[in-house]
């Protein structure tokens, strides 16, 4: 298995620092040309909502950060279909065109990677 990284996000965008830490890692890995995929499930699907407008200074707008992942060669972005349905979020509300995966496809896709990290 080639040296590939799967980053699994399961935290809400602004409740903790998990979200920003995970995206920082994705950008760094992308910069170094790593084969990387980013997964969003659970409350992390809220990170993908387009209309975010953080009120306090110094808080990064996560939807903008996620939209910039493409410039770091991070193209494989997946989102869990079940988590989206549970939270009544439509694909059209997302800030990037992420690939929607069912639970089985999610498992299969994640397990293709040699390193798996959860935030």
């Amino acid at each position: 298995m080639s040296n590939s990284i799967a980053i699994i996000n399961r935290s809400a965008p602004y409740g903790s620092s998990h979200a920003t830490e995970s995206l920082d890692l994705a950008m760094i890995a992308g910069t170094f040309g790593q084969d990387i995929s980013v997964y969003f499930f659970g409350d992390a699907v809220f990170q993908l909502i387009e209309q975010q407008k953080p009120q306090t200074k110094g808080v990064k707008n996560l939807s903008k950060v996620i939209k910039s992942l493409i410039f770091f060669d991070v193209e494989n972005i997946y989102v869990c279909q079940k988590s989206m349905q549970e939270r009544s979020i439509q694909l059209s509300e997302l800030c990037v065109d992420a690939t929607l995966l069912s639970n089985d496809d999610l498992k299969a896709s994640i397990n293709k990677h040699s390193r798996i990290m959860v935030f």
Partner: protein
Amino acid sequence: MPLHIIKQSPFDSPSLAQCKLTLSAGDAILFIENGIYCLNHTDSELQKLAENYSLYILSPDAETRGISNFPDYVTAIDYEEFVKLTIEFSASISW
């Protein structure tokens, strides 16, 4: 007649469910921080709750998270109104 403040997402915490067990007539519920996500959770049954209790949502926290178009039975408030609420009610309980 306390003001119940829900600050955790219903998807990874039972805050709202447990709060419901303690509700009595005249109480109010305010959603802040990740509690905003209760609006996206079908089990919250906010419409039913709204029949007996007044429901509020802190609009800066909702805007941060890109959650908008609230149902009419939830009142969006800002920080000033938040303070007024805490004075109006006998106590504030954070969940």
